[in-house]
Structure formats: C-alpha cells, structure tokens
C-alpha cells in the first residue's frame, strides 16, 4: 500500500491533537505536526509532503502566507493544501482558493469531513 505524508499546521495544541487523531484513521497516512507557518516551512524544507492541512489564524506566520510560500516553492508548488478556519464567509473561501488552496473546511471541524477531503485530494480509496 502506498504511503502518504501529511503536514498538519495548527497553533492550538487541542486542534492539532484532534486533527492528528482524525487523520491517523487513514491507514496509509503518516502525519507530522507543525506549530505555525514558520515551523511548517522548516519542515517542508527538510522533507517532502503529499498534503498540507493548515489553520489560517496562527501567530508568526498565518495560513494564507504559508499557502503563498508553498505555492512559490518548486518542490511543493503542486502539493494539495487544505485550509481549516473559523471564517465561513464566501469571500474568505474565495480568497484562500485564489491563493492556491485546494479545499476549505470551516470550524468546528468534523473528523469524517477532514478525512474524506484528504482522501479525495490524495485519491485514496
């Protein structure tokens, strides 16, 4: 079975724990955690990830800046990015998708929704 790696970027330990908990249900997925955008870039520089799941509101570097940086990185410019945020308006969604995010999930999150979105983007059965 193919192995996929996922980088979860979330400053809240609780949400990180919840996301890791949910994504660990996907058998072929190896999950790595990052505290914020800067930590995520550090991890992206040293390893290749198949998908990134990131919060928007984070200190130091927020999720949207991270999306921009990832899209300009030749190694990860095609990597699917899932945005998770409390902002549920259509404009926020449009903005995130225009910057290069592939999917947009609003909080409070439901584990099945996160799992199905990640599976769909990775084309896992």
């Amino acid at each position, binding site marked *: 079975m193919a192995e996929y790696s996922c980088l979860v970027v979330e400053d809240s330990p609780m*949400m990180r724990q*919840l996301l890791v908990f*949910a994504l660990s249900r996907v058998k072929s997925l190896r999950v790595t955690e990052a505290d914020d955008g800067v930590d995520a870039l550090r991890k992206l520089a040293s390893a290749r990830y198949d998908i990134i799941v990131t919060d928007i509101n984070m200190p130091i570097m927020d999720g949207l800046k991270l999306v921009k940086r990832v899209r300009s990185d030749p190694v990860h410019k095609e990597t699917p990015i899932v945005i998770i945020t409390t902002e549920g308006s259509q404009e926020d969604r449009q903005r995130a998708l225009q910057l290069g995010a592939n999917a947009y999930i609003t*909080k*409070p999150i*439901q*584990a099945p929704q996160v799992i199905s979105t990640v599976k769909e983007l990775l084309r896992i059965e």
Partner: protein
Amino acid sequence: MANDPREKTDEPGRDLRSERDEVLQRFTRGSSFARELLQDYEALEQRVRSLEGENAKLRATIEADHAVRDLLKKIETLELEKAELVSRFNRAEALQSNVSSRMSEAEHEFSNLANLFVASSQLSSSLSPRAVTRRIKEILAQLVGAEAYAMYLVNADGTELVPIASEGVPGGKLGPVRVAGSELGKVFESGEARVNEETNSNHGSPERPAAVLPLEIDERYVGVIAIFSTLAQKPRFSTVDFELFRLLGRQAAVALVGASLFMRAEHKLPGLEAFLDLSV
C-alpha cells in the same frame, strides 16, 4: 358365282364374331377398369403423399410445441432464477447500505468521542489558571463553534455571577449579573443547562443567549458558561455539543479551581502524607 355356304371365307363365323366382340368388350372393360385402377392408384398415391406431408407437418408442429413448452419451462426457470438473483441483489444492496450507514454512524461517533477525549485531556493537562481558562475558551470556540461567550463564577455571598473570561463581547457589555431574576441565575440555581431553541444559535445575543450551562464542583454549582452566539456556519447545536456542555459543566470548574489552588500553594505538590489517610 353363287357362294357356297361351305366355301371357306376370311370372315369369322357368327359365333366367333360374337365371341370376339365379347372378348373385345371384356378387354375394353378390363382396360377401362385397369385405367380406373391406375387412376385410383395415382389418386391414392397422391393422397398418401399428401397425408405424409400433413403428418410431417403435424410432427413438426408437435415437435415445435414440445420445443416451445421446453422453452417456456426454461423461461419460467430463468424467471425464477432472475427473481431470486434480484431478491439476493436487493438484500445485498440493503445490507451494503446498512453497513455503509452504520460505518458512517460509527465514524460520526468516533469523531464525537475524539472531540470529548481531546476536550477532557486538554482540560486536565494544565495546572495554570490562565492555561485552563484558555483551554475552556478553545473548547468553546473550536469544538462547539461559539463566537461570543463568557464564563461567570459566583461571588462569595452567592448573589452575583461575575464574568472571569469572555470572547466576542465588547468589554463594556459584560458585567456582574444578579442571580435573582436573571436567566443566568436560573441556570445557576437549578443546575440545569438551558438551550434557546426558539432561534438559531448563531442569532443569539447577551440578552438572549443561545445556551447557558452550569459549572459544578462536587455537586455544588459555582458559576455558568453563557454561549451568546455561535459562528455563522453553525446555526444549531448537535448531539456532541450537548455532551461537551456536560463535560465542561463537570470538568471546567474543577480544572479551574484545582489550578487556582495549585497556584495559591505556589506550585507545591502535596506531600505523600496527604494521600495516606484516604481510607480507600
């Protein structure tokens, strides 16, 4: 010259003539009879051929009837098999749908349990009042989807609920609330959570909170959490939210008070002697 009757002539005698005529007649009759016989024979032969043809046709028809009967039987058997297969397929489909629905329910339950587990473990993983308060707020914001909320503790004489933490409400709008006669006070006194089901939870306000839940320590109520409104994308509370309310009601105040006592004790852990006389 006169003919002598005794003179010989080529002409037959009268007897012979009649005999000849008779033979000729017989021959003619025989010949006619033979012709008739031949005609009859031919007619019979034709009739036999015709009957043989009819017979062959009848045989073919009977055979065809047999074949049709066989085919009908086969069709009947196939129809039965088809019905059985369709029924089995429907049963399998129903089973599959049932399994999918149960899988989906199980996933949903797992998700709910994960939320409760994470909330509970977060509440009990810090002994700093500030960190505990932050985690309570995080549970409300991230797991319940609360947009504006406040946590109140009762004052020493039990007359007022005093806000100790809030989010999404202008500071000036929040102040102590009298227990007597207020909606928050009713929940505090009764110990029963109240959810406003008249309007969507994202349309609540400090005057008409979407939900109020009591905070309990050791069967005593010490305060309330008021969720004034939820995020726009969260118009109503779900089953897991009510579970989270129960969990917060029982664990939030315990964690907060525990952390306060620990801070007051200057982060000193109690000595072993504190646990020796538990009589358990």
